[in-house]
């Protein structure tokens, strides 16, 4: 019924690359988001300034431009560093900046900025009395974060994380432009070779739809779990 002219397996492999890329970027984005939110909420003005610059710059620049800058610029930086190391210290070191790494770095960095805003709002939504209570019990700062702030923050952050994840998933398609063989790239090459764009792009579009629909269900389930014990009005 679905004739992919033998491109089926490579499309499947491409889909796996897409999922891997999205998950790794998500891990990086969540870590950066937590760091960024902590920096934005800290009383240290330098940290606050760095985090604010980070989120402002990221939200002002298109993701594709950022990706091209990282991919091409990253390689130039590595080349220069490699030359310098060889000339100064006689160390023969080289590193090929591949599209996958640039993709994870760029998408992680971009969505780290959005996650920063999500986590910042969520941390602010934790009632101050909870933190005071933790202090009164003699909790250390780490303990307060882990036992009191983090679990309560997560409930407020989940809808935002979910939205960011849905956008992130679709942004991974851009990495095909810098040459990563994800499913978009495979579909593009196949449709050029077979002169049949609909035959390859429409199944790929449906894989994306299935991924977004599936993660929507998963997020709803997580949200339900995180909100156990919260009385909700209707």
């Amino acid at each position, binding site marked *: 019924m679905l004739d992919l002219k033998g491109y089926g397996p490579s499309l499947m492999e491409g889909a796996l690359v897409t999922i891997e890329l999205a998950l790794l970027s998500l891990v990086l984005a969540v870590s950066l988001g937590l760091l960024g939110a902590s920096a934005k909420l800290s009383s240290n003005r330098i940290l606050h300034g760095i985090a604010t610059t980070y989120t402002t*710059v990221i*939200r*002002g*620049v*298109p*993701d*594709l*431009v*950022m990706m*091209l*800058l990282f991919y*091409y*610029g990253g*390689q*130039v930086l590595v080349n220069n560093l490699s030359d310098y190391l060889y000339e100064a210290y006689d160390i023969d070191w080289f590193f090929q900046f591949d599209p996958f790494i640039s993709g994870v770095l760029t998408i992680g960095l971009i969505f780290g900025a959005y996650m920063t805003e999500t986590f910042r709002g969520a941390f602010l939504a934790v009632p101050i009395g909870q933190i005071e209570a933790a202090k009164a019990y003699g909790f250390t700062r780490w303990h307060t974060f882990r036992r009191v702030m983090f679990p309560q923050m997560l409930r407020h952050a989940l809808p935002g994380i979910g939205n960011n994840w849905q956008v992130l998933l*679709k*942004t*991974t*398609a*851009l990495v*095909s*432009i810098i040459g990563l063989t994800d499913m*978009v790239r495979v*579909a*593009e090459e196949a*449709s*050029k070779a077979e*002169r*049949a*764009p*609909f035959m390859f*792009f*429409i199944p*790929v*579009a449906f894989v*994306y*739809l299935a991924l*977004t*629909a599936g993660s929507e269900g998963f997020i709803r389930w997580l949200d339900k779990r995180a909100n156990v014990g919260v009385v909700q009005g209707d």
Partner: protein
Amino acid sequence: MPDFLFQWLNQNEIFTATTIVHYWDGLVTTVQLVFLSLLLGLLMAVPLAIMRTAKPVWVSGPVWLYTYLFRGTPLLIQLYIIYYGIAQIEGIQQTFWWTIFKEPFYPALLAFTLNTAAYTTEIIRGAIVATPYGEIEAAKAYGMSWALRMRRIVLPSAARRAVQAYSNEVIFMLHASAIASVVTIVDLTGAARNIYSRFYAPFDAFIAVAVLYMILTFILVYTFRKLEQHLLRHQRPIGS
């Protein structure tokens, strides 16, 4: 021109008059593409949003499917399907449509318009659904017909609620338009890619264009903040 700027322009090899003109052409293309697709998308979205809130499923269902498909798939895929797909339609190369669609600008405009219309439809739908019921009741009590109610009460009040979410969509569209460079359009990003490959200077080429996009973004943010203040001025606290 300030002296230091003059000297700097004279000394560097990349930002010469030729490349600056190249960037300028790219800027014009980007602005045209984004402005036209937003305008057409908004014109499509208003009736679609009204249909989406209609009770009969045969009216709201197709609109739901359209927004679901276009919001659930990457814009890049939509662009590829339209750009590569149009040329494959039987016999199109003999009609006058081909003179329009053989330029990459128009398939890209179509893809961007359909994409932004889907997102905007959902934004406006959300705003329509959130109309306080009292406003509708009051309009009914005045004997307004459905069309008059829509025009005088529901849509203006929905516009106020939608403007903030819509400003995000506009910025998203500006940033998304960078992918037009993939289908050989020389927009801002396309210009940067050309200049990069000519001079092999990624930092100069892409940072310059990133700064331009940032300036455009801040202009949009500022404009929308002013528009929002204007639309919501009746909600300002007294004395401010």
